[in-house]
């Protein structure tokens, strides 16, 4: 009997366990999945919590219900990956030897990377919205907030879901407008990038939208520290931006177990082949989702497309065949723009977000890189798709793993 071990039962790990449970021959293979946490969060939903559009219950389910019964599910912290001897040590001392390892330990915010951030103002005038705790605390703060300098701050790339900070700005603009205090709120978006977003086409469109909504962008801002006594953020070149309420997206890093096991880069992301998803260190270790260092978006949609390729490659690897180099960096995401509308973007390693229709050429029904009400409904419906199709590794009709070029106005880099 051989062992296939999956570390992490988040979006990526759960999809993989469901795919492989259907593919692997149970006479030869035992599948085990490890995760220290009980709760599965629908992380895209965190964005809506501060504005009271979603409640906590909308984004929380038990991890167990998404793991097939025939798989061994171990709820325990991971102490060490001994890649030299193909073994994983758990916190309780138990050893899990493996023949194939899939790492899906994800990424998380690390506020301690920025001087002063987790100081006296943390969860008082300074919040994140990438954790359930941060998003909920921010909702309580916003409920009674009367206005002032509202600064949304992005520390550094890469982050999980790179469009979320902008969506947050758009939704905040809508929220303050509905509350009738928009004119009392001075909104600023502070970013280390040279524009609103990493992809030029998209940055132009979203940058224009920021301007239209009267949200000031401060670009090229590399944060040195946050002063929570006098309420300002300061860049390395001495620029200071004052705030009354700061919403920050701190540095994102991979799990500490990756550092302990000497498998990661400076941010604990694992060097991974960007087309096959095999780790660069060991050929029987594969990596998926936001645990990798591949230059794609660290979002669930990317993990979803990766899961199809990785499933193929695990089967190829088992059968001693060459791996397919099929992952193309494909990502697609809805971008909430407020007032019940949203954008949809579709891109990969080589092709920037473009105009067109999705998922079907010409027919759509969703419009790419354009604002529409239908896109907003798409985003809301997606939560159900996530829980009932995506996590279970069931096919999503009409959506292909590789980005399709038909029906899109393509400009390659």
């Amino acid at each position, binding site marked *: 009997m051989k062992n296939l071990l999956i570390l992490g039962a988040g979006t990526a790990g759960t999809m993989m366990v469901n795919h492989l449970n259907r593919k692997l021959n149970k006479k030869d293979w035992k599948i085990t999945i490890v995760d220290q946490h009980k709760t599965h969060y629908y992380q895209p939903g965190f964005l809506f919590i501060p504005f009271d559009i979603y409640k906590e219950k909308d984004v929380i389910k038990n991890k167990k219900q998404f793991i097939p019964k025939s798989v061994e599910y171990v709820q325990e912290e991971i102490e060490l990956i001994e890649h030299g001897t193909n073994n994983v040590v758990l916190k309780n001392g138990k050893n899990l030897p493996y023949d194939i390892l899939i790492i899906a330990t994800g990424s998380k915010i690390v506020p301690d990377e920025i001087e002063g951030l987790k100081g006296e103002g943390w969860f008082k005038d300074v919040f994140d919205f990438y954790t359930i705790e941060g998003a909920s605390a921010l909702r309580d703060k916003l409920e009674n907030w009367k206005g002032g300098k509202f600064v949304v701050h992005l520390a550094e790339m890469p982050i999980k879901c790179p469009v979320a900070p902008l969506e947050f700005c758009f939704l905040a603009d809508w929220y303050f407008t509905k509350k009738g205090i928009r004119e009392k709120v001075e909104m600023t978006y502070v970013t280390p*990038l040279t524009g609103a977003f*990493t*992809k030029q086409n998209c940055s132009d469109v979203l940058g224009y939208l920021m301007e239209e909504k009267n949200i000031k962008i401060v670009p*090229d801002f590399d944060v040195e520290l946050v002063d929570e006594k006098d309420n300002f953020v300061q860049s*390395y*070149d001495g620029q200071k931006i004052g705030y009354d309420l700061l919403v920050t997206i701190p540095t994102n890093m991979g799990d500490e177990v990756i550092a302990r096991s000497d498998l990661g880069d*400076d*941010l604990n992301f694992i060097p991974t082949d960007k087309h096959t998803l095999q780790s660069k260190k060991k050929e029987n270790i594969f990596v998926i989702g936001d645990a990798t260092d591949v*230059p*794609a978006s660290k979002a669930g949609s990317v993990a979803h497309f990766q899961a199809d390729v990785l499933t193929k490659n695990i089967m190829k690897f088992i059968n001693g065949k060459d791996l397919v180099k099929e992952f193309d960096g494909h990502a697609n995401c809805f971008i909430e723009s407020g007032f019940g509308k949203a954008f949809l973007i579709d891109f990969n390693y080589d092709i920037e977000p473009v105009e067109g229709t999705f998922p079907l050429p010409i027919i759509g029904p969703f419009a790419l890189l354009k604002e529409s009400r239908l896109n907003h409904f798409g985003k809301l419906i997606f939560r159900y798709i996530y829980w009932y199709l995506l996590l279970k590794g069931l096919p999503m009709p009409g959506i292909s793993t590789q980005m399709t070029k038909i029906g899109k106005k393509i400009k390659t880099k």
Partner: protein
Amino acid sequence: MATKDYGGNTVDVNDEGYLTEFKQWNEAIGEAIAKEEGIEQMTDRHWEIIKYLQKYFEDNGEMPSIRNMKKTGVADTKELYSLFPGGPLKKSSRIAGLKKPESCI
């Protein structure tokens, strides 16, 4: 592919002005690029960083991150910003004749 002339040395550059052939680089070119980046005087410390980047690139095939340079004691972040104001890695890699560090998505 565009070319650019630095004091009689013609080099191949990409559309952002980064050299595409490191073997065409020399210190005089580095100094000329530094001026374009607003650094009037390259000090010994500037050159130490530039040489470090070139060595690192030769060994690893990529640029180190600012975090890595801090961690390994090469230079702290504050110093890098004072040496190369506005964008330490973007500027120093261009002066060093290396490629622009890959921006993250």
